């Protein structure tokens, strides 16, 4: 077996026993954010599109999940489906507009749309404004076959969702579609001259990323049983950027590492209150100034240079 495969097997084994060692809710939250960061990274790392409004997909999907399960009393599978489809639809509309501009404007446009969605969430009745949706039931999956009221049971469901989501990301990146995306990222005029309709590829990547962010958001609502304005806020959008950045933009495992680091940090620093933002901001500054490749990226570089030297 190659070292990469061994690492994968070890990681999977660790994921299976993890809930017996660590607090399951913490693990599930981290997995949701890892998937969210992975979806964001799919767009930035492989399509070169920097979205600063990804919280709108994550947060809206959480609301959709909550509404379907709580207000309509439908099973959680349909809630997840509603979250994914709703986020994808929102991604289609905002993405079609945002890809009309490039570079830094793209970031500003997505940020502005996310802020609009935030304002709408404050006003729309189904989100319950400042209160949010609370006490979303954990109803059994597959018509009662899989009960999820126990955190450990739910953990394996969340792990399966996470693995499915990440497998999708992996397949996208390693498909011909992913290759075209990278070509557009690196040299758009050239890709266009080869006959690829760049805008279509970008839009598809945007919608896929939105849908997977939606899956993460809906799953988060299933785990924590609430959906609030925090999930759609600009600071949430910033947080997912930070996770991807800490782990390493454009690496597959980076966002997972980054999400676990940031969620762990938030858990430990919760007592610092307002100061958590200062620390997060400082991490942003340090990483942008000194470690732009992120943890995984820097380690990979170090590994490569060591092998070259040896």
């Amino acid at each position, binding site marked *: 077996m190659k070292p990469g495969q061994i690492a994968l097997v070890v990681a999977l084994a660790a994921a299976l026993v993890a809930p017996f060692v660590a607090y399951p809710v913490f693990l599930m939250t981290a997995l949701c954010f890892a998937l969210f960061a992975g979806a964001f990274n799919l767009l930035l790392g492989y399509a070169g599109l920097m979205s600063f409004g990804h919280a709108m997909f994550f947060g809206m999907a959480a609301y959709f999940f909550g509404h379907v399960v709580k207000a309509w009393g439908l099973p959680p599978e349909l809630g997840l489906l509603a979250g994914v489809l709703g986020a994808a639809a929102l991604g289609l509309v905002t993405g079609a507009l945002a890809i009309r501009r490039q570079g830094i404007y793209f970031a500003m446009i997505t940020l502005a749309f996310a802020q609009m969605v935030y304002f709408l969430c404050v006003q729309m009745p189904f989100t319950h404004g400042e209160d949010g949706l609370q006490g979303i039931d954990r109803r059994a999956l597959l018509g009662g076959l899989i009960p999820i009221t126990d955190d450990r049971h739910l953990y394996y469901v969340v792990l399966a969702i996470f693995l499915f989501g990440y497998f999708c990301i992996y397949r996208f990146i390693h498909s011909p579609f992913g290759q075209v995306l990278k070509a557009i990222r690196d040299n758009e005029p050239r890709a266009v001259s080869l006959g690829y309709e760049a805008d279509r590829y970008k839009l598809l990547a945007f919608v896929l990323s939105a849908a997977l962010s939606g899956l993460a958001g809906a799953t988060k609502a299933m785990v924590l049983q609430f959906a609030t304005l925090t999930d759609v806020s600009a600071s949430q959008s910033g947080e997912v*950027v930070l996770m991807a950045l800490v782990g390493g933009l454009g690496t597959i495992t980076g966002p997972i590492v980054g999400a676990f680091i940031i969620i762990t940090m938030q858990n430990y620093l919760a007592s610092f*209150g307002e100061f958590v933002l200062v620390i997060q901001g400082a991490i*942003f500054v340090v990483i942008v100034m000194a470690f732009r490749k992120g943890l995984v990226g820097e380690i990979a570089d170090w590994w490569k240079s060591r092998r070259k030297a040896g």
Partner: protein
Amino acid sequence: MFDFLGIPPQALFGQMLLGLINGAFYAMLSLGLAVIFGMLNVINFAHGAQYMMGAFAAWLLLGILDIPFWASLVIAPILVGLFGIVLERLLLKRLYHLDHLYGFLLTFGLSLVIEGLFRWQWGSSGAPYPSPIPGGYNLGFMFLPTYRGFVVVAALVICLVTWYAIERTKLGAYLRAATENPTLVNAFGINVPRLITITYGAGVALAALAGVLAAPIQQVSALMGTNLVLVVFAVVVIGGMGSIMGSIVTGFGLGLVEGMTKVFYPPASNTVIFVVMAIVLLIKPAGLFGQTK
């Protein structure tokens, strides 16, 4: 008195004034963003935080040193501008050779740090700043608080002075030339890196000046800049950052649009600017005053 579509003139003109005031801040902030972007190729996310710092500087100068508003109007922007210069020299300067994205991320991180520190020190609830010119005029069709009228006029003057400085003075000519081709301008013996530093300092000072003007109208609070800067980003996308005059017109215009929405359909007043942005992206993606490259 006349009614317009069933809306009393008091409400109509009152909201129009409020819209103009908001527009004045949009114009001043988007102007600063455009000036900085033109020279540094960086979207200064910390613009809102620096606007907040301007308001806080005025509030602290009054509270601790008893320095009046009119002096703060000069001192606060200089202080915050110097802070901006330090940031540029220490951090931003090192990112110019990279993708624009990193400047955006850096200034985003900086705004988190700045706002977090202010929140930690002074909390999130606002502090009032006394109006330097209390009272107002009854114009018959509406009541005009003197200070608010002053803000609109002051903002117009500030915008026009900035426009003049960039489009009509020698320094402005250097600036525009350096935006076009920094290497060539450097070869002519003009210190371009210093020009860049000055530009950033001036843009930041402009944000702080807007903050000082806002202090007597809004509560001075750590979060006063955050939401504003997000709307200003939409304003910048709508106007396009290519033209100074374009930023000014778009800023005031969108303020008015927002004010009118508050009169005719209040629930949409928060979102109308973003809707305008979506429409502009559909019709003229480069922005109203932008050029497509």
